[in-house]
């Protein structure tokens, strides 16, 4: 069989496998496990979008939490019913035009993503001329500014009190479907000439510029796309949690996704997906180390924070022995898997014949 044909078959069958897994998941998983899977899908979206700027374009941006909060608040306010809004705004009155609006999930999410993207243009235009650490500081500052604005605009965001009762309209289909779509779109962007320009800028800005790439334009493009998906991810997170407040979106929240991206590999979509799922599930699975344990004669009392210690150890191992993260800059490929399971010779012959 030809390799390209084989690849097509494998890709299509894995797509159906994913659909089957989502379809049958409620049969053998409880709500808790499904909740973790939903959360992993959202974390994958956020990690992939962060990787687009930090890993593929070489922009060290730390404003992700800011874009997420824009998406989360927009989605939440557009989804909530009038009754819930009145209940939430018991201390300050809601801005009247906002009160009556109730939209469906997709327009709300798109609106959240678009607003985040608009903010990305506004913030990106002046700051993307900065490099390295300076860009990181500027975007970090932006994230904090957004948070402070949200804390103080009482009649729109309900200030520090936060919002509650966001309708939980998503499920595994929505979260994983959007995650798959985001991965597909980002993958296609990266394989296009835009993607090559991003990577060229990452590898050597001056060389890229001398080859005729408009650095500023491509940087801004990457930044805006990333913010758009961060907004959508934030919106999905708000729907999953059903409640948000500004404190949630502090800059440390960005680090959580930066960590996922670094562990997976800066510049690898596969890495972000793997580590996004792995870390989310691991943090929950590791809860057992904080429970009191009975090992026969020895009883160990539960120590809160133990799983953070183990998490840090795993992080240390990754940083020491996989400096470039689990995947480095490599991507998932069927060729690699076929080689690993011992059918490599078959493919090599095929390639030699061609």
């Amino acid at each position: 069989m030809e390799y390209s044909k084989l690849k097509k078959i494998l890709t299509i069958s894995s797509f159906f496998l994913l659909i089957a897994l989502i379809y049958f998941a409620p049969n053998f998983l409880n709500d808790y496990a499904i909740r973790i899977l939903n959360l992993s899908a959202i974390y994958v979206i956020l990690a992939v979008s962060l990787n687009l700027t930090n890993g593929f374009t070489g922009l060290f941006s730390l404003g992700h939490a800011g874009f997420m909060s824009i998406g989360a608040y927009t989605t939440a306010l557009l989804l909530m019913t009038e009754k819930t809004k009145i209940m939430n705004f018991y201390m300050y009155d809601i801005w009247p035009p906002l009160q009556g609006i109730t939209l469906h999930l997709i327009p709300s999410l798109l609106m959240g993503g678009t607003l985040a993207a608009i903010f990305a243009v506004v913030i990106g235009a002046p700051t993307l001329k900065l490099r390295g650490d300076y860009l990181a500081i500027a975007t970090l500052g932006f994230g904090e500014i957004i948070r402070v604005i949200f804390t103080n605009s009482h009649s729109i965001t309900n200030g520090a009190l936060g919002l509650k009762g966001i309708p939980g309209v998503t499920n595994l289909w929505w979260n994983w479907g959007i995650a798959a779509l985001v991965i597909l779109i980002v993958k296609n962007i990266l394989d296009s000439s835009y993607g090559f320009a991003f990577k060229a800028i990452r590898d050597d800005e001056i060389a890229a510029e001398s080859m005729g790439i408009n650095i500023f334009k491509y940087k801004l493009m990457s930044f805006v796309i990333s913010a758009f998906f961060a907004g959508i991810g934030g919106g999905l997170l708000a729907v999953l949690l059903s409640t948000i407040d500004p404190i949630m979106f502090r800059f440390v929240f960005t680090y959580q996704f930066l960590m996922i991206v670094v562990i997976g590999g800066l510049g690898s979509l596969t890495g972000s997906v793997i580590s996004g799922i792995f870390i989310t599930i691991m943090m929950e699975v590791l809860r057992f180390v904080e429970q009191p344990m009975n090992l026969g004669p020895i009883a160990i009392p539960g120590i809160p924070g133990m799983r953070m210690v183990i998490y840090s150890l795993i992080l240390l191992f990754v940083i020491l022995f996989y400096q470039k993260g689990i995947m480095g800059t490599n991507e998932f490929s069927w060729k690699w898997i076929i080689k690993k399971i011992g059918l490599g010779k078959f493919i090599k012959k095929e390639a030699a014949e061609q």
Partner: protein
Amino acid sequence: MYTKQQKELIFLLKNDSLPYVELSILPKDILIHKSTKMSFEHYQGGKEMRKQSKIFSLLAIALAFALVVAGCGGAKPAPAEPGSSDVIKIGIFEPLTGDNAAGGQMTLEGMELANKLYPEVLGKKVELVVVDNKSDKAEAANAVSRLIDNDKVSVILGSYSSGLSMAGGQIAKDKGVPVIGCSPTNPLVTLDNDYYFRVCFIDPFQGAVMANYAINELGITKAAIIKENGSDYSVGLARFFYNAFTEAGGEIVADIDYQKGDNDFTAQLGSINSAGPEVIFAPGDFGPSALLIKQAREMGIEVPFLGGDTWEVGEFLELGGAEVEGATYSSHFTADEPATEMTQTFLDAFKAEYPEQNPNAFAALGFDTYILALDAMTRAESAEPAAIKDALAQTTDFVGATGLITLDENGDATKSAVVNQVVDGAFTFKMIIEPK
């Protein structure tokens, strides 16, 4: 084993003076990176290193895998239905790590103390399942979901911080398991959620208590407010103080914000001072509040300071020193004047269990959530979540360590508040204010 030509090349390679060569001429077991002049030894060394690191990384993966397997194994045993086995499980979700860890720990101590005193209900042993929510909303939601689906608890206690409680509350509501809150004071927590109850009073009441205290007891009509504008607690308290104070005929001469993490309040205090208030209401965390009062005294502002229940921790006195003398705040509980016989029981037990610590309001509230849960189970004669919920909703004049608790239609506690004051470097009871 190498040809002459190959040996020559290796020699050149060793001396780092390899000219341009056709890489294919080199023996197959020597690989050279195309662009770098890596010497032969160097390459060999690198290979050794890589081998070692591979072993380590394999170990790391094996460790992680073992943990995952052990974790799955550990989470498996779960009884079929809540309350059907020979133990009754009570879930606790508290911030034991992260920003709110201090409050979470104190509350947990109170709950564990209560569990020690009353280990049984309905003739069955009570097992506490404690999960940490890391002061993080997503984790709080996961924690509650885990307690309900994996551990099949009958009732859940927690959590310190209103934001965390709201994230967990939604899941409890969807799953129909009651939650008893210890100290989330934001009114939103129980609104539109029939399954959330709490043993503490809420921000509106606390704000009103201090406003009435200022007007009736201090005889003051001009007050200033300084609040942390990123904290739901501080903003809520300030707002309700404002409403109650102006309604009772007082005047708010200044209403000023500070940010989380601020250490210098001189600018805000300066503008407050120029407005000439007779009292300053400063709800907020104990850390910034103590600093703020200290700086005010240094600036020569002599008017009394009023605050909320967060001040009642030892660090407030340590940070503030002599300057916080006279600071007055509302609290849930006082050790000086036991409100009920349960208060005395709690105080005795606490002193026996934690001799180095002073009994605090958070531990007392944690204690109350636990005994209220047991009381509801006894009244319902069942450990079914739905039955417990109905029993909780009918709670009237329940004798707790923090006073008599009656739950209203929202699930909020109607109970008396205590006003305490710092006198001679210690929290001293001042008066009890009854709910209207």
